[in-house]
Structures are given as structure tokens and as C-alpha cells.
């Protein structure tokens, strides 16, 4: 019943931080997951195709360290609040950079006492590679949902299965492979 996603993504009905647990609670897998990914959560939602590139904003120091490698927490949001991405086919590099700068500025204004974030650029991973991440029983860990809530190009990567200790280590390795930091598109000077 993909229609439950409408309620989950309705901010008035479900707090944003509860989205991940609620989606896991839906127990989507196989055909049900594919149907959920094709469901129009918002009126303007267009399903994300396997061959689409997903751009992930990279900031220092919370996703990339000062030495240029991924921070330990770089992709953990996929298992907690959903990993926010931009669909490359529906946007362009300038708009992605613009979003990245805005996101870092917004954080810094909200958190004046914390270490400031610097927008570095973005890295692109193929949607199909995210969908290939599976557990030992062959079930997909993540769903990729079109979520044009405030931005037509926005998509979220959400965990759809409960994970155990070994799964978490497996996922950590694979995210670094799907989104290669060496391929980062740096912000223009």
C-alpha cells in the first residue's frame, strides 16, 4: 500500500525525523518496494529511473574531512533521516552548487556555536547502484523516492529494512563505492 507514503511525507502528519522508522515499518520489498518507488508521493513526483544520476552535496567537515576522505558519518543519514539527493537529469551543476551553498549557509546560521560547514561540491552515484545494495537474503536495503517537496529535482534514499550489526558495516562499504569521493565535482572558485 504505497499510499501510506503520502501520510509519511506529510509534515503535518509525521515529523520529518520519524520518516525513516515509518518507512521501515511499511516492510516494502521486491515488487511492493518497486511500486512504492513509482507512487506519486507529491503531485509533481516523477519516478526515479535506474539510470539516473543522484547528486549528493558534500560539506566539510561533516561529510568530507579536511584530508579529503569521507567522514565516518558521510552517508549515515540514509539509515536515520533519509539521504537527500538531487536528480542530475532534472537539474544542472549550477543549481546543485547553489543548493549546496544555501544548505551550508542555513546550517551555519542555525548553529552559530558549532563548527561551521563549508560546501565543497557534489558527488554523483547511479540510482541502480543504490538499488543493488542488498542483504544476505537478496532483499534491497534502500528505496529511492522522488520527493519534490521544495525542489522538483529532489529525491531521498531511505532504508526500507531493519539492519543488524553486520548489515551496517556492509552498507558503510558500499556507499563509499557508489558515491566515489575521488569523482567529486568541486564548487567553482
Amino acid at each position: 500500500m504505497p499510499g501510506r507514503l503520502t501520510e509519511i511525507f506529510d509534515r503535518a502528519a509525521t515529523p520529518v525525523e520519524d520518516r525513516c522508522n515509518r518507512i521501515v515499518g511499511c516492510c516494502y520489498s521486491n515488487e511492493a518496494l518497486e511500486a512504492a518507488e513509482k507512487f506519486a508521493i507529491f503531485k509533481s513526483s516523477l519516478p526515479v529511473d535506474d539510470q539516473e544520476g543522484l547528486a549528493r552535496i558534500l560539506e566539510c567537515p561533516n561529510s568530507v574531512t579536511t584530508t579529503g576522505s569521507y567522514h565516518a558519518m558521510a552517508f549515515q543519514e540514509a539509515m536515520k533521516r533519509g539521504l537527500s539527493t538531487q536528480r542530475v537529469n532534472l537539474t544542472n551543476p549550477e543549481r546543485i552548487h547553489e543548493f549546496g551553498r544555501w544548505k551550508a549557509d542555513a546550517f551555519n546560521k542555525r548553529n552559530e556555536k558549532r563548527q561551521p560547514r563549508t560546501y565543497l561540491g557534489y558527488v554523483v552515484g547511479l540510482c541502480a547502484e543504490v538499488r543493488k545494495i542488498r542483504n544476505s537474503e537478496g532483499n534491497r536495503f534502500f528505496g529511492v523516492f522522488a520527493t519534490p517537496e521544495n525542489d522538483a529535482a529532489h529525491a531521498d534514499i531511505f532504508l526500507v529494512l531493519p539492519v543488524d550489526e553486520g548489515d551496517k558495516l556492509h552498507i558503510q562499504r558500499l556507499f563509499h563505492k557508489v558515491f566515489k569521493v575521488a569523482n567529486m565535482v568541486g564548487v567553482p572558485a
Partner: protein
Amino acid sequence: MSVLNSSVVNVAGFSGLFSDAYHNDGLFTADISERIAGWTGNIVDACVAIAGRSCLSEPHVRWLDSATVELVPSDFQFTFLECHELDLVYIEDDELLFRSYCENAIAELEQYRSYEFGWDGEEMPAPNQHSIDDAYTFLRLLSSSCEECVEAIPMLDHEGISSIAFENESDYMSVAFYGGNRVVTYRWCNLTEQSSVSKDSLDRAEFLNSLMQDIAKL
């Protein structure tokens, strides 16, 4: 250590009974002075021998002078003589040097210690301190037993659990620390595209040795 040595005996500086004996009784003849110098030499030799035997490090290096030395973990495996009362040398954790492949990971783990709830600006939990302790101890052990190794990559998950990953072209291995010596290991082989997960305890020597050997082989 301050010792009386024949080369620094200053007869004019004697006082009290020694002075009386020297000036009035003629005790310090050339013969006596020579014998005192001999005893002194023997005492010094004995002290050096005791210190040398009581502080055997691997690979059995005896420090012959008091110059500043740089220590690496393998120098700390002291054995002590049971038949002597000795002054022990205490070395704090933060004085230990780690091998270069551990240095970045250690620095990162120390940074994790300072994180509080919401450290990412959202609602990320504070890292588990027991997990960090175990990861630190594991790296110290690895550093003391493995001279060369691939770079240790620190990680932290959304539940505050620390892990350390090791990777070469064909294999990937990570160890997650759940506190109380409980660990979960994950291995991935690029050639076979097979993964395996196991749970164990760092208390179990056989498992620990096997794990460190596997990491050293990467």
C-alpha cells in the same frame, strides 16, 4: 643516581668521623683509598647489572646512557626480576606512539570522544564511549604487534558505534566495537564478491590473534 667514585673523591671535603679518621688517626692511607675506589667501582658495576637485568625490553636493548630516547610499543614489553625490589617506570597511554597507519584513526577517535548528542546539528546520538575505548585499545594492540599494515579507516554509525576498516585492492575488512570487548567483523572479497559477518569477543585470545593476523595480511 649519585655514587662515590675514586676519581671524584675530594679528601679536603671530608667531615665528621671521616674527617677525624683522616686527620687524626691516619686512616686514609694510599692503600685504604685504593680499596675504597675498588669497592665503589664494584658497587657501580653491580647497580648497572641489576638495572640491566631488571628491564629487559624486546629486542633486549639496554640503554647505556640517559640520553632522550623515542619509544615504540614493542619496547614496552618489559619483564621484571621477581627477586629484587625495583623502581618501576610508569608510562601513560598518551605517551605511547602509534604506528603511522594508526595515527589518523587515533586522532579521529579522539575527536569522537568530544561529540555530544546532536553533534551533527541534527539529532545524531553521542558516540558510545565504551565503543571508542575498545577501538582505541584494539589499535594500540595492533600497533604493538604489527609493524606494517594498510591504513586504519575510522568510522562511526548512526547509533554511535565506532568501527575500524582496512582495505586493499582485493579485500575489505571492518571491525565494529560494541563495548565490553564485543565486536562484529565484516569481510568482503572483491574476487569472489562474497561477504561474511561474525560476532566475537576481544577477550578470546585465539580470535584476537587470528583477526590481527588477517589484518596484517591485507
